């Protein structure tokens, strides 16, 4: 504490003359935050973002890791998008901004509308590049801006190793979580694979919890008559009644 340039002023105030040249070197926000956490005892903070959904939190080791790439893979229909929706819901509940890159442009806005209902800038932002190949560029820009603690790259071509390394480096520099979601040809429809890339990589299977498909027409004045049409045309086992 005595060696720290952050000498407290009367009243417990700290003065940082210029953030960029703090400690005489140019620091990233994450580094500066780390330094501040050391000198200010009350600034203890979790290492990651807790999502609040037991299977996912368990898979991720408690929290969504910051500064790392988390990879979610599974075949189409395995519940990948639903898992991502749960993850985004959890993040937004904690007032985190989320940038979602929908590279395949197949996301259904109805399933996500409740996550961006406020008129301000909070919540979910979706980037829909006209060409899936631009998705990696989008994720690099979003991470580099430092505005989004969570960036989701959904779909698009498989990232080359060099780009993955670069994105991981930018995510680490800006203390952001990058979630890469892609379709795999193999795997079962019962769940998806969540893999955290880093010094201690870990891979966990998350079972899907989908029970029902969403009803197509959700208008409150239209009653749910699924099956009525089929029953009208199908021959009755008991013959015509009355």
């Amino acid at each position, binding site marked *: 504490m005595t060696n720290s340039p952050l000498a407290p002023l009367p009243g417990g105030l700290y003065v940082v003359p210029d953030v960029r040249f703090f400690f005489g070197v140019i620091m990233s*926000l994450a580094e500066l*935050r780390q330094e*501040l*956490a050391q000198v200010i005892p009350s600034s203890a*903070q979790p290492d990651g973002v807790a999502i609040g959904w037991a299977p996912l939190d368990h898979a991720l080791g408690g929290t969504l890791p*910051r500064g790392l790439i988390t990879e979610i893979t599974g*075949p*189409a*229909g*395995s*519940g990948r*998008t*639903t898992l991502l*929706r749960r993850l985004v*819901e959890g993040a937004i509940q*904690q007032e*985190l*901004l989320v940038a979602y890159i929908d590279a*395949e442009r*197949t*996301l*259904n*806005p*109805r*399933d*996500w*509308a*409740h996550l*961006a*209902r*406020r*008129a*301000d*800038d909070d*919540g979910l932002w*979706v980037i*829909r*590049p006209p060409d899936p190949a631009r998705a990696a560029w*989008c994720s690099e*820009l979003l991470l580099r*801006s*430092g*505005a*989004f*603690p969570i960036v989701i790259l959904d779909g698009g071509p498989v990232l080359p190793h060099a780009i993955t390394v670069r994105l991981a480096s930018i995510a680490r520099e800006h203390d952001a979580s990058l979630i890469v979601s892609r379709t795999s040809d193999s795997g079962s*429809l019962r769940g998806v694979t969540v893999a955290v890339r880093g010094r201690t990589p870990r891979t966990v299977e998350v079972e899907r*919890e*989908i*029970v*029902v*498909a*969403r009803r*197509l*027409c959700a*208008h409150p004045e239209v009653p749910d*008559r699924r*099956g*009525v*049409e*089929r029953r009208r045309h199908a021959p009755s086992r008991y013959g015509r009644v009355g």
Partner: protein
Amino acid sequence: MWSADVTHLPGTDAWDDAHRALSDGARVRMVSSAARLAGVTPGMTLNAARAAVEAASATLDVLPWDDRVIARAVTMVTGQLVDLSPQVTAATGAPGVWWIGASGFEKLGGERALLRRLLALAQKYHPRSRVASADTCIAAHVATMLRWPNNRSAHLVPPGGSMRLLRRAPLTLIPMDEELRAALSALGIVTAGALAALPAGEVERRWGDDGLRAWHLARGEDDRRPVLAAIAAAAAVTVELPDPVTTLEPVLFLLTPALERLVRDSALKGEAIAAVVLTLVLDRAAPHELLVALARPVARAAPLFDQCRAALEACALTAPVRALAITVREAVPLSDEQGDLLRPTWKDPTAMEGVFARLRAGLGVEAVVRPLLVDRGHRIEDRAIWADRPASMEGAAPSATEASTRLLTPPMPVAVRRRHGKPAAIRWEGRRWVVTRATGPEHLAGAWWDQPYDREYWYCDTPRGSLLIYHARGTGRWWVEGWND
């Protein structure tokens, strides 16, 4: 006052001490100091240059002249000079020479302090770089070429002293046609002072406009200036490129230091920038102006750069760019908003706007969107859209066990085989999907006066996932609209 900063691009002492020349194939473009002492001058043919060096019992090392490498180096140095002065012009046709505006430095230590800073920067590239400040470009340039006591590398010509300086300068330092120079030499006129002493009418009668132009220069009357004759406003930066460019890359390279300078100057005045005007000075075309207005004033260069870059990338260049001028159109007092570095959820709104501007410029305005509930009908695509405006309707959140849907836009045609009225198998993109369970139908129909559709939707579970298909009862065709994921 203007100062000229002269450096040699190759940039090392060792390079200058050897007999070297850069050549475009036929003629010499640039020479080292040793080669110059041996009598080699830019413009000589290669054979003549080699002969001159061989006469001094040495060999001329000829290197190829690469315009791209030179231009890149000049642009890089120009970007660094912008940090020292808001007006920087790389001299056309003379790489290694810059005209730099030296007005308005009274509160920053005056021109002497500017010269010291310029020299320190120039000497990073060449230890024998020289800088000078004078009323006119010609006087500043000549001052860098003359030998001064103690081998001084920086020289300040006092106001009104240009003509006095030029009086003793050799005529070779005054730009003019080589034939004219030879004619003057033949008449014994070898200094600028001697030329300036001739009657103007006589010079014009003998050598026409070229002669008169050289006569004016010899008298220190030089109307050449960097891009702007004067700085219109304090918050403006002007950068001229050595050669007109057709790509934005060099412009963007210079944009960063220019914006950093503007932001720093504004912050010193306690202001944040709310709008800037980028003026692209085009070659033989009217200047192109771009207004970059920010939703929130910024006091950092990075988000401002993103917005400016997005604006530049969105504009189509109709002619090569010669110079870039950035003017602060609107500035507001700095607010006391303070970010919380210890709070991981804290976000920088200006950074977000900057990256969105860049994404919209690169991908189109519809690339950055938010989900928006609408009430256009009962079809799945009529319930919500992607829009770049905030939501006005609130919808119910799907329950945790409800699946998310992926939608194909537009739907794709499929062939469906039915059994007992329900889909039993689907053929889509050449693959056969056996339906293990079909849930439905959900019948949706539009009003006959508005949207005359009539569809029967089915969720079809297959070993490879759950497809959402519908039967258009009007046409009898089947379509796949998406799948549960």
